[in-house]
């Protein structure tokens, strides 16, 4: 962080003409998801807890939105409400202008925990939603194979989930959600459990897929670089209660590539996110956070100090 501040970074609000033009066009696209004044309180044994307060935002068609915020700020609660797995205490949720209630195949979801059905092969997993939609067996099979091909796992169509690596499982989960051709793909820290290398690979896969098919993505992460690398816009939440802090238009031009991780726009956005998510703490909070350490190394230890 200190190193970043040594350079003169542009403001994250500064956009090149191409980027500004793109956002102007993006805002012209039809609205897919509209969230209006969403509140969520949980009843707990210690009384009600406000998880989300007055969340409002819209996502446009084929937009990639990332939601970021400190842990416990209500990101999962928000996406679970969008998926219909939780009911909001108040507020409105419109998909293509119509209110939605309860879960449905029009909103695909990829969870952080692997949720492939262990008793079904990769192919049958992807066929699951198609068969629920009343597709015939053969049609479903053919369609499923196309989606499996898209995520590059044709060779594993007959494998069971326990034979796949974590990254492969999430690719199947993406294919399974996309097979239903949802209006929006909801992803709750889908790469959170993967190692750094696999995660980077998965990010490029996801970008590839997003570019090539008609899908709007709402992606939750707590990794700042991941958010900037993937998103058109980043919805920054703050904790206790979960509220929208800022909706950032990422000034990094599209299409993205890993080289951009060091571009001035990228670093400027990263700096802004750092400020929002890890605000400079006052001394009281800092000292409370510190460990109360006593030196526990022998005075005559051969390594006197680690510095």
């Amino acid at each position: 962080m200190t190193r970043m501040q040594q350079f003169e970074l542009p403001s994250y609000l500064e956009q090149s003409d191409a980027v500004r033009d793109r956002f102007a066009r993006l805002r012209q696209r039809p609205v897919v998801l509209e969230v209006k004044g969403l509140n969520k309180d949980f009843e707990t044994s210690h009384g009600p807890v406000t998880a989300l307060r007055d969340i409002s935002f819209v996502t446009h068609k084929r937009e990639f939105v990332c939601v970021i915020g400190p842990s416990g700020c209500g990101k999962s609660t928000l996406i679970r409400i969008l998926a219909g797995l939780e009911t909001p205490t108040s507020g409105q949720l419109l998909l293509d202008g119509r209110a939605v209630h309860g879960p449905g195949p029009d909103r695909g979801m990829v969870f952080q925990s692997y949720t492939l059905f262990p008793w079904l092969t990769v192919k049958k997993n992807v066929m699951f939603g198609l068969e629920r939609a009343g597709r015939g067996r053969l049609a479903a099979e053919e369609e499923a194979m196309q989606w499996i091909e898209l995520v590059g796992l044709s060779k594993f169509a007959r494998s069971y989930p326990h034979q796949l690596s974590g990254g492969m499982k999430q690719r199947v989960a993406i294919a399974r959600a996309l097979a239903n051709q949802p209006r929006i793909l909801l992803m709750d820290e889908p790469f959170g459990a993967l190692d750094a290398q696999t995660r980077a690979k998965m990010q490029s896969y996801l970008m590839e897929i997003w570019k090539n098919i008609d899908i709007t993505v709402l992606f939750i992460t707590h990794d700042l670089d991941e958010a900037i690398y993937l998103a058109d816009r980043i919805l920054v939440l703050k904790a206790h209660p979960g509220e929208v802090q800022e909706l950032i238009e990422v000034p990094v031009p599209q299409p993205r590539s890993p080289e951009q991780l060091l571009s001035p726009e990228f670093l400027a956005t990263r700096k802004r996110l750092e400020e929002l998510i890890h605000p400079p703490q006052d001394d009281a909070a800092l000292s409370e956070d510190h460990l109360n350490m006593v030196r526990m190394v022998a005075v005559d230890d051969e390594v006197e100090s680690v510095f």
Partner: protein
Amino acid sequence: MTQTLQWFAPRRQLAPRPRLVLGIMSFVLPLLIWSLVSYVPWIWHPLVEVTEPGSVSYFKAGQRVERELFAAETAKALEAGAPQPQGTPANPVYLPAPHEVLQAFYLAFTAEPERRNEKWLHESLADSIYVIFWGFVISSIIGLPLGILCGTYDVFSRLAEPFVEFFRYLPAPAFGALAVAILGIYQAPKIAIIVIGTLFQQILVISNTTRKLDPALLEAAQTLGARRLSLLFRVVVPGIITDVYKDMRILLGWAWTYLIVAELIGTSSGITWFITQQARYKNFDNVFAAIMIIGIIGLSTDLLLAWLGRRIFPWQRAEARA
């Protein structure tokens, strides 16, 4: 040295060879102890089997008497100059030697029963298996669906489980007389006892297993368009079936324990009746043979079911070995 130490690392799986060897040892060791006690004259053998009564009037050849008594009578005969009794160290009649049990095992299937109204061992066995089979099937027809419903829907759970919880504490044998009064004296009341003994445990065990299904799978299925019945039949049932199968194997073992009471009500029949009868005649070699057959049937059914499970549920081959 370090190798053997590794054997005692918690939850570490042994290599295939030591696993196999230890598995065989688990049978060989008890057999070895049994053989030692049976064949080594100075281990245990608290009795003496009389071979030659000598001058002792109440000794008969083949009779087993206390060692002290035998010593006292021998001393008396020696003092009186009368012929001494002869005998060999022996175990009580209730502990036959392995070869005697093996012989009884063989004879049970090949030799006509001694008494006219007695059944062959395999006929008794067939009676028992009939009772166990139908008892378990009837219990499962009710218990499986009910358990799954209770584990899936709170409505069923609240409606059924408190009563089931209460009923499972009532001892199944207590219903013996009632079962006979209602169902007659033949196989039906016996089957009823097995059902009463198994069903209530089964409902609770299955509903608990059902509740262990990862709720995230249900949520994922809902976001893929599954609802109501397809959630139950396409997600809940396949999701728990491997664990339910394991539960059923354990429950089948429990059903066997209720067999003992079941077979003593109404007209007595079956393998436990065979055992009781043979014990009464002091044919303990037959008793052991029959007990061993129950063990063999139980273990081989379980192994067969385990093997079958691995075939039917290919997705859990990784964990099936546990």
